[in-house]
């Protein structure tokens, strides 16, 4: 057994699946995910929750988190507006589908493109702004879009909501959780593969160069404006797709979902998962969706003895969320992905690790 990975060519070093072992695991994981809906009802019964539903929501968030990770993790631009961007995607797809009867496979990319356009417009200040100022600028974008979604009632339906038909390809409707699960699964795999590959392309390397030291990047010929806007565009595209899927899945869109709170949750996902790791977005999304579920169990158990427990559940969730963010950033600033690497490296050479 080799005591490490030794590449003898750059081509080898650049490979996504560095060993057959990794490839095997990945195929195993995919097989598991494909088979999941068949035994999901059983698990759902044991855990008293809806596993398929949770998986769909997790996967939608994974797509969005990949998007924010490209912007924040790879390009180093902070965005507090991705919640509203997701809303733009949801409304674009929703309006196209419900009012103009545009088929699903046109409406979803359109949602992505529309969101990319909006994201690029709000990304323009990023040329002159950095870090803190940019965080505030994107936050302003969040509030402006939020306001538009709430008050432009002739377009969005406002707080009454907008009804979206089921996604359909031809006459095949994705009208059950199980069918929708496979739809999202395909898109998640595509999104993840694209993100992973993006990091190996010219734009991907330009993003990382901008993140690490943008002055040096500019000196060696990276066009800052172009790549920053491109990063905003790609990132918003992902979030727009996530938003569109969300609309098709929930089938009723209202503005209440796309508040600053969602933006904060997206940011929390990529930070807790691990900035700049493709796996990070996945871990982060899983963590953030499962956290409320995990909190539900003890609070339901306690609600027998403390009846007011149920009332403050939402608040409690918010508080625990805040606490977890703080603890994570203090004790594990590099996120779950880094922790996973540490654990894996420890066991790799166990019991002779140093």
């Amino acid at each position, binding site marked *: 057994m080799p005591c490490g990975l030794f590449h003898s060519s750059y081509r080898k070093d650049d490979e996504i699946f560095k060993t057959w072992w990794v490839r095997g695991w990945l195929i195993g994981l995919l097989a598991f995910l494909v088979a999941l809906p068949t035994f999901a009802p059983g698990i759902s019964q044991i855990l008293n929750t809806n596993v398929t539903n949770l998986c769909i929501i997790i996967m939608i968030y994974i797509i969005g988190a990949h998007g924010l990770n490209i912007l924040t993790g790879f390009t180093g631009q902070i965005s507090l507006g991705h919640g509203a961007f997701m809303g733009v995607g949801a409304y674009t797809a929703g309006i196209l589908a419900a009012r103009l009867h545009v088929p699903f496979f046109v409406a979803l990319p359109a949602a992505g493109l529309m969101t990319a356009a909006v994201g690029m417009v709000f990304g323009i*200040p990023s040329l002159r702004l950095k870090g*803190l*100022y940019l965080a505030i600028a994107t936050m302003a974008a969040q509030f402006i879009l939020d306001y538009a979604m*709430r008050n432009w009632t002739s377009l969005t339906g406002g707080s009454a909501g907008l009804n979206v038909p089921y996604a359909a390809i031809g006459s095949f409707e994705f009208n059950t959780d199980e069918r929708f699960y496979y739809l999202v699964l395909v898109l998640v795999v595509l999104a993840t593969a694209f993100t992973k590959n993006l990091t190996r392309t010219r734009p991907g390397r330009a993003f990382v160069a901008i993140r690490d030291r943008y002055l040096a990047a500019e000196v060696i010929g990276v066009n800052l404006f172009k790549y920053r806007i491109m990063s905003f565009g790609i990132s918003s595209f992902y979030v727009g797709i996530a938003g569109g899927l969300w609309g098709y899945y929930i089938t009723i869109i209202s503005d209440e979902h796309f508040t600053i709170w969602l933006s904060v949750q997206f940011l929390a996902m990529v930070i807790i998962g691990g900035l700049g790791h493709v796996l990070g977005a996945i871990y982060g999304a899983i963590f953030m969706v499962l956290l409320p579920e995990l909190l539900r169990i003890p609070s339901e158990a306690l609600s027998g003895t403390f009846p007011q427990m149920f009332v403050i559940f939402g608040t409690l969730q918010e508080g625990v969320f805040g606490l977890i963010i*703080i603890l994570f950033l203090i004790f594990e600033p590099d996120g779950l992905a880094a922790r996973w690497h540490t654990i894996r490296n420890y066991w790799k050479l166990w019991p002779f690790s140093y």
Partner: protein
Amino acid sequence: MADAFLKFAQLLVTGLVTGSVYALVALGFVLIYKSTSIINFAQGEFVLVGAYVCLWIVTGLGVPFIPAFILTMVGSVFMGLVVERLVLRPMIGEPIISVIMVTIGLAALLKALVTIFWGTQIRVFPAIFSQEPIRLGQVIVSEVYVWTFFFALLFLGVFAAFFKYSRVGIAMRAVASDQMTAQSMGIPVKLVFAISWCIAAIVSGVGGILIGNINGINITLADFGLKVFPAVIFGGLDSILGAIIGGLTVGVLENLMGGYLDQFFGGGVKEVAPFIVLIIVLMVKPYGLFGIKEIERV
């Protein structure tokens, strides 16, 4: 004509009063940014906590308003110290995004704590100021507004003088200007950080109490802190004078825009107007009116 002028004057006065409180909270915000380079997203929650603690001391413990006010300030100092020591100090040297996120986490935590202790319904301070309105010419102003404006200006004045003349204030400015030099001159930088957070907590708490006296308190008071962002961007993140002018401007602007444009956009313009102004300011003058433009040398 007279009516139009009256409406304008009324909006202007309301704007100035709200703006003075924005200025006060913005002062705390800028102070933290200047000395520690941290953007504090929990500023609004400081406002919230200050207002609720004062209300609790007045109504729950039956203490008269003035001692309660002072007790709240003491409590704010304590909160500032705890937050700085437990949350922000471990974050020194971490990347900007982590620090931003930690203050967001702090905001969520504080908000949840307030809700758990005090619930979400609107509460009002017992009337402290007389309800008799004051007439300035034809414009009618309630006494609360006058006192709020007065207190806000008083605190702004006191802190401005504090930074300019007191020993601690000068030390704080030194740290803001150059941390390493300040440290090598024997200024305890960590202490200065702690003091910055305390002062920020105090001014926010005072702002919360003042605004709470006007509108009553509920959990949405925390959104007040978000309005401070346009104010500080307008003036430049690192300028105290800019924060004051920015606060007043944003207060006046949002009231005027709300007053005149609500009819066209179906209400709520007041909530979003400052942010539109913010985007425009950032596009035109990225470092605000008084902010220092960063010159980068390689």
